[in-house]
């Protein structure tokens, strides 16, 4: 079944002076999916979101959301979308409830409907017991969840999330994600999110990787990762040398050894692991699988990492990425 895309851009261009932030962008996003818009800082992600949200007008090209033209029918587009901006846009002096009520009135819900919806969404986002507290007492993760709830208040068709987990601690990130992945099913929305965290993009049905305002590749996370040439299987055997000898007779993949482990490159892990067990039997002491990440995809296509030049905090994240690279040998 072919559905009309809920978001569509045709050769979208946005220039800021001499700088071309978005360069002939063609996008199609299917309804009720999570679409990841991935790229390094300054790649044009936020600019694209701002055009789709009618906050910026494109230099040329066209953009449609829910079938409405973002330039010609901005009011209809605005009624169809909910937005969580990169920076917090809550009123810290108002309570969670008041923030949502304000939003409901802006979008034309009446008081009764608004109250029921607020209750539903605060429960859904796990904030109901804090509804009468001023937002300034909320943690970063709670504020984000409240913003997601607010973005959903008026039953939008598309929810835009611009770097939703930026600056959150790992626990809050995980918690927010638990909620976001349920959205297409429970709320019937399409989620369009930008991020430069690789692991977050993994939950998207489709991912577009953008660099210098252009989409350099698009597909499901699995498709993209297969581009880098498959998984790496690591295992330890009683006698690594002998294991390698046995495997090399049967498997064509590249096999190396180091640090007490054997690694088999460029394979489909789910097929390769049973094969190894079958061939080596009790020889095998441990097996682990290293899947390629979207960062590897970006690295392969552009020759640099997604996070390179990224100024943010995330010291731990970079250490983890560093270790991962070393672990792989």
């Amino acid at each position, binding site marked *: 079944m072919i559905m009309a895309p809920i978001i569509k851009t045709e050769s979208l261009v946005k220039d800021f002076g001499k700088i071309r932030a978005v360069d002939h962008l063609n996008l199609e996003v299917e309804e009720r999916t999570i679409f990841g818009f991935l790229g390094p800082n300054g790649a044009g992600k936020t600019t694209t979101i701002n055009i789709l949200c009618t906050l910026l007008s494109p230099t040329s090209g066209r953009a449609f959301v829910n079938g409405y033209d973002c330039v010609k029918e*901005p009011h209809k587009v605005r009624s169809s979308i909910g937005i969580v901006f990169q920076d*917090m846009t809550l009123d810290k002096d108002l309570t969670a409830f*008041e923030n949502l009520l304000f939003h409901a009135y802006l979008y034309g819900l009446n008081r009764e409907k608004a109250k029921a919806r607020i209750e539903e969404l605060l429960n859904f986002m796990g904030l109901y017991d804090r509804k009468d507290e001023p937002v300034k007492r909320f943690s970063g993760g709670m504020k984000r969840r409240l913003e997601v709830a607010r973005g959903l208040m008026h039953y939008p068709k598309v929810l835009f999330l611009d770097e939703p987990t930026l600056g959150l601690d790992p626990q809050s990130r995980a918690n927010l994600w638990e909620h976001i992945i349920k959205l297409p099913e429970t709320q019937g929305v399409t989620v369009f999110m930008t991020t430069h965290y690789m692991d977050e993009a993994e939950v998207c049905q489709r991912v577009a990787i953008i660099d210098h305002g252009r989409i350099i590749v698009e597909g499901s996370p699995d498709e993209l990762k297969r581009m880098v040439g498959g998984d790496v299987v690591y295992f330890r055997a009683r006698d690594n040398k002998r294991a390698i000898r046995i495997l090399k007779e049967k498997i064509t993949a590249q096999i190396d050894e180091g640090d007490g482990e054997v690694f088999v490159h460029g394979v489909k892990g789910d097929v390769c692991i049973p094969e190894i067990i079958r061939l080596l039997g009790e020889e095998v002491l441990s097996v682990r699988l290293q899947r390629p990440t979207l960062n590897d995809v970006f690295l392969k296509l552009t020759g640099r990492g997604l996070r390179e030049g990224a100024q943010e905090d995330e010291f731990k994240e970079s250490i983890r990425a560093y270790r991962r690279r070393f672990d792989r040998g």
Partner: protein
Amino acid sequence: MIEVRVVYVIVMRELIKFLREKGRLVSTMARPLIWLFFVGMGMSRLVPQDVTGTDYMRFLFPGIIGMTILFSAIFSSISIIWDKEFGFLKEILVAPVSRFSIVLGKAISGTLLSTIQALIIMLISPLIGIYPSTGEIVSSFFMIMLLSFSISTLGIVIASFYENLESFSMIMNFIVMPMFFLSGAMYPVQKLPLILRYASSLNPLTYGIDGLKHVLLSEGINLDFPFYIDIGVLAFSSMVFLFLSTLVFEKIR
């Protein structure tokens, strides 16, 4: 197009925030009282009655009401800059509502809050020998509302040109204080040098304070303009500011 619910919810937000910030009320009420009693009492020893046409404290009183309105209306309107800085303005600007409704909501919030504060200052009028009749109270109420609306809309125009909180002291020093000094609040506009008199005649506050003098101090005082001019200029300037602020709001992204 005016969306009543939008205007309503913007006004409600400002009211709730105002009532929660007890400190703001205290400080906006303290300023006019300090000027009235500290500056007023000092000046009344220096200024002869024939310059102002009445006792200086009485002469100053309408100006102090004007000052209350000036500060609270400008404060209320430039909360738009706060909203820009803290991001909340984006939440309003991406909503499917007309810019005019947003501007009108802000203007009415400013008008309401400064009218309330000006009326509180009105309560102390007997302390300085002004005993307004019921009719005078009603007229001052309308004058106060009109002036509040004019200054609030002016404040929105000003606020839409500034991006961040650093601009706050700029606005205070280069717009608000000169507006106060060139408003006839402290000295009759006719006694000013020609160039300052021209500057004063461009200041909406001048007409508001003059109008309040008409209402509260009718007898024997040196007034600057006929009453209908005061009303006319305030009404006209409000419309111009309202139009301008809607125009600049359309441009904000």
